[in-house]
C-alpha cells in the first residue's frame, strides 16, 4: 500500500540521519540515568508506605523516569522539523506524490523506535540499581510510553511546522512540559502534597498514565486505575495524532 511504502521510506531516511548523529539520542538518555543515579537513592530513605511500591523504591521511580523520558524526548522532536522546513526539505516532499500524512507518521515511527531503545536501556540500568518488577509490567510500561510518544511527537511536529522558529518553539514546549512533569508525580508521590496540589494534578493526563504504570510494576494489572490509565493513553494518542495530521494534511503548511 502506498501509505505504508511512503511511511517506511520517511522512517528509513530519518533513522539513517539519526544514526549518523547519535549525540541527541545519548543526551536524551543521560538525563533520566542521572536522575536514577543521583536522585533515586534519596527515595530509599522515604517510608516505604508513602511510595506504595512494596518496599522497592525503584518500582515507584523507574516508571516516573520512563514517562519523563517520553515527555521530553517526544515533545522536542518538533525542533528537527523546523530545521527540515528551513532546508526546504518539507516543501520538496510536498510537491511529490508522497502521502503528506506519511511525512509525519514516518518521523513519529522513528521517534517511537528511538524511545523504546532508550527506555530499554533505562530499565536495564534500573535493574542494575535494584529494580525488581515483573517482565510483563516492563512491556506494559513500554506500551504506555509508545502511546505517549505517538501523540506527543505528532503534536510536536505540527507545532514546529506552525511556529517555524526554534526561538519560539523551545520556550513554548518548556512552558507546557515542565508543569505537566511536576503535576504527574514523577519524582515524588503526589499523595505527599497538600490537597490543592493533588486537586490540580487531576488535570494532568500523564498522572493517570503514571499511576497505571506503577500499578503494573507492582503486579496489579486489573483495576480501575489501570483502566483509566489505558483509556487516557489511547485517548491522548488518538486526539494528538488527529490534530497533528490535520496540520500536515492542510493544503498550505
Amino acid at each position, binding site marked *: 500500500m502506498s501509505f505504508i511504502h511512503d511511511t517506511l521510506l520517511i522512517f528509513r531516511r530519518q533513522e539513517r540521519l539519526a544514526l549518523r548523529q547519535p549525540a541527541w539520542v545519548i543526551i536524551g538518555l543521560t538525563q533520566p540515568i542521572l536522575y536514577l543515579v543521583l536522585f533515586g537513592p534519596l527515595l530509599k530513605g522515604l517510608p516505604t508506605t508513602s511510595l506504595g511500591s512494596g518496599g522497592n523504591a525503584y518500582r515507584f521511580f523507574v516508571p516516573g523516569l520512563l514517562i519523563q523520558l517520553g515527555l521530553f524526548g517526544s515533545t522536542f522532536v518538533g525542533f528537527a522539523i523546523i530545521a527540515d*522546513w528551513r532546508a526546504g526539505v518539507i516543501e520538496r516532499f510536498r510537491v511529490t506524490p508522497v502521502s503528506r500524512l506519511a511525512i509525519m507518521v514516518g518521523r513519529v515511527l522513528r521517534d517511537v523506535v528511538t524511545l523504546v531503545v532508550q527506555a530499554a536501556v533505562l530499565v536495564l540500568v534500573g535493574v542494575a540499581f535494584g529494580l525488581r518488577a515483573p517482565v510483563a509490567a516492563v512491556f506494559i510500561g513500554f506500551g504506555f510510553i509508545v502511546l505517549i510518544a505517538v501523540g506527543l511527537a505528532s503534536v510536536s511536529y505540527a507545532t514546529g511546522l506552525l511556529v517555524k522558529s526554534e526561538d519560539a518553539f523551545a520556550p513554548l514546549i518548556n512552558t507546557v512540559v515542565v508543569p505537566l512533569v511536576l503535576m504527574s508525580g514523577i519524582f515524588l508521590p503526589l499523595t505527599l502534597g497538600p490537597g490543592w496540589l493533588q486537586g490540580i494534578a487531576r488535570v494532568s493526563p500523564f498522572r493517570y498514565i503514571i499511576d497505571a504504570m506503577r500499578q503494573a510494576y507492582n503486579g496489579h494489572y486489573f483495576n480501575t486505575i489501570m483502566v483509566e490509565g489505558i483509556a487516557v493513553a489511547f485517548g491522548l494518542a488518538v486526539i494528538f495524532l488527529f490534530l497533528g495530521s490535520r496540520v500536515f494534511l492542510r493544503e*498550505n503548511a
Partner: protein
Amino acid sequence: MAIIEARGLARTFRSRKRTVEAVRGVDLTVGDGEIVGFLGPNGAGKTTTLRMLTTLLEPTAGTATVAGADLLQDPVGVRRKIGYVPQAIGQTMGGTDPNCLVIEELLDQAGLYHLPPDAAARRAGTLMAQFELSGLERRPVKTLSGGQRRRLEVALGLVHTPPLVFLDEPTTGLDPQSRNNLWEHIGKLRSELGTTVFLTTHYLEEADVLCDRVFIIDQGVIAAEGTPDELKRRISGDVVILRVAADQDDAARKLLAEQPIVREISSADGTLRLTVERGEAALPSLLRVLDAAGLTLESINLARPTLDDVFLTLTGRSLREG
C-alpha cells in the same frame, strides 16, 4: 499543445482584519517544450503564482491545467507529472538535507515517486553524470560547493523524468561561473530531453539567455508577455545616442523631434538621446535628415534596451532593487 493553462488564478491572504490580494487573476499559457521566465519584483505575486501551480498553495479563484491534470481536482496527478526545485535563498533553502549523502538524496527522491530500486539506482547514476556530480555519491550534502549543491537540487527535481519542471530562482546566489554552467544544463533539458521549463528569476540576463518567452508580473497581474526581443521593442524601443557640435544642439533637436519615427528625444551639451521603434531601420533616415540640414555629426551609437528597461517602463521599478 499547452502544458500549462491557467485562467484567472488568484490568491487572497487574510491576516487579522486586512485582506491582501497577492495574485489578482493570472492567465497564462505555456506550450510543450518551451522555456519560459517569470519576472517580477518581490511582492509582485511571482512566488505565490508558482506555489499555486505546483500545488503548494490552493488558489482562492481560477482554474488551471498543469501537465494534463486539473490543478484543483487532481493535485496528486499534477505532482506526479511535475518537477519542482525550490529557491535556495531566503526563508527556506533549496530542499536538500545537509547531513544526507548525495546518493541518498537521489534514491530517496526516486522512492517518493515509487521508482523500483533498480530503476532508481540507474536513474541516479544518469543524473549524477548529466549534472557533473559523478564521484560525489558518498559526500554529505553540506560538503558540496554552492554550484554542486544547486545542480543536485535541480537533479532531484528531475528524478522521475517529468515533462515539466519548475525552477524557483535557479541560479540566485551562485557565482558567475556556476551560473553559466547551470544555464547550459537548463538549456539542455529542453534541447536534449524536450522538457518544458518554467523558471522565476531576478536576473534579466538569465531570462534573455535562456527563455523563449517571458511573463512579467506586477501587483498580482501579468503586466506583459512575449519573447525578450518583442518586449524590448514593443515596450522600450531602441535608444540612439547622437553627438553633434555643441552650438548645433538645439537645431538638431528641433529637426529630429519632427520625425515620425522618433518617440522621445532629450538633449544635453550636444548629446541627443532618442527613443525609436526599430533602431537599425531608423539610423539611415536620421543620418539623411541631419545631413540635408547641414548639421555635422560627431558620433552615433545604437543601444538595445535591456529587459530591465522594459521592467522599469512597465512597473516603475527596477528589478535590481527587489
